[in-house]
């Protein structure tokens, strides 16, 4: 395995894994137990969607709204798996393990190794996926226990840590003027819908902005 692949994979795994503290804390602050919070990171294992699910519950939204928002946010994973399937050529149970580890980080580190050949792509994907899985789950537990022992989330700023975490995930995507405009429209749109729709549903309704903006090239 090349040093570059190992370096890319481990640096991403540790850095991204550390976000798990924020998720663990947000989930407990939203009213999920430490066990449920850990199961989220073990079984759902796609960060932004996990934040969305607990975020909608924290906002007082219905369970269905939380599930729909989280699922919509993970639709990009279907496109990642489509890209990775012909490169990994995983068979049998390995295909289903590959699916579980198909997230932003494993796909992007894997594809970034393309210059060094197919073997490096596969190593990058598996190493990053496994590394993020380990650190994401460890740090989730740290955040969940930490939040549980702190008590009132607002007194420790946990209720502001969640939107800050979303903003941190959004920020790197705002690279073009077009994306910034679309994000601004989504902000205004969801603010305008807040008083008229049930809690949590303005989040899902914001997808209309993506559909309208992406309809034509």
């Amino acid at each position, binding site marked *: 395995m090349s040093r570059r692949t190992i370096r890319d994979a481990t640096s991403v795994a540790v850095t991204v894994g*550390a*976000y798990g503290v*924020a998720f663990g804390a947000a989930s407990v602050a*939203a*009213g*999920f137990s430490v066990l*449920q919070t850990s*199961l989220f990171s073990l079984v759902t294992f*796609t960060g*932004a969607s*996990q934040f*969305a*699910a607990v*975020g909608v*519950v*924290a*906002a007082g939204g219905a*369970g269905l709204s*939380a*599930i729909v928002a989280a*699922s919509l*946010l*993970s*639709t*990009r*994973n*279907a496109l990642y*798996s489509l890209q990775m*399937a012909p490169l990994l050529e995983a068979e049998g149970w390995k295909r*289903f393990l590959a*699916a*579980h580890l198909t997230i932003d980080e494993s796909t992007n580190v894997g594809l970034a190794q393309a210059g060094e050949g197919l073997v490096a792509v596969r190593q990058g994907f598996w190493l990053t996926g496994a590394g993020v899985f380990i650190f994401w789950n460890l740090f989730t537990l740290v955040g969940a226990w930490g939040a*549980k022992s702190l008590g*009132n*989330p*607002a007194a420790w*700023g946990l209720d*502001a*840590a969640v*939107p*800050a*975490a*979303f*903003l*941190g*995930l*959004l920020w790197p995507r705002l690279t073009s003027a077009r*994306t910034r405009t*679309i*994000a601004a429209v*989504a*902000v205004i749109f969801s603010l305008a819908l*807040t008083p008229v729709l049930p809690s949590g549903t303005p*989040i899902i309704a*914001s*997808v209309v902005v*993506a559909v309208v*903006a*992406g309809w034509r*090239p």
Partner: protein
Amino acid sequence: MATVSGVLTWSVLIGTSVLCYAIKVVGYVVPARWLSHPRLQRINTLIPAVLLSALVVAQAFTHQTHVVLDHRAAGLAAAVAALVARAPFPVVVIAAAVTSALVYRLG
């Protein structure tokens, strides 16, 4: 700690886990052309940006169905400042939490 029902939290956990895994499996089991429609790809690449924007709004500026401006807005402003200064992710989150907690305790 917020008090929400166990039925709600378990159903959200199970529903989210099942659907998110199903979405990940799709690309490994269906023919490539099913998901390769350009319009679907264009819309899909925009979904994270709009959903994350709406989630920031919901978490920072709303309470139930009301638009509110409270300590969380101060926290978010600190997060923006940290992001503009190119701070790493943990610093962004901690800056927001500390600022918000200060405003909450002073308020």
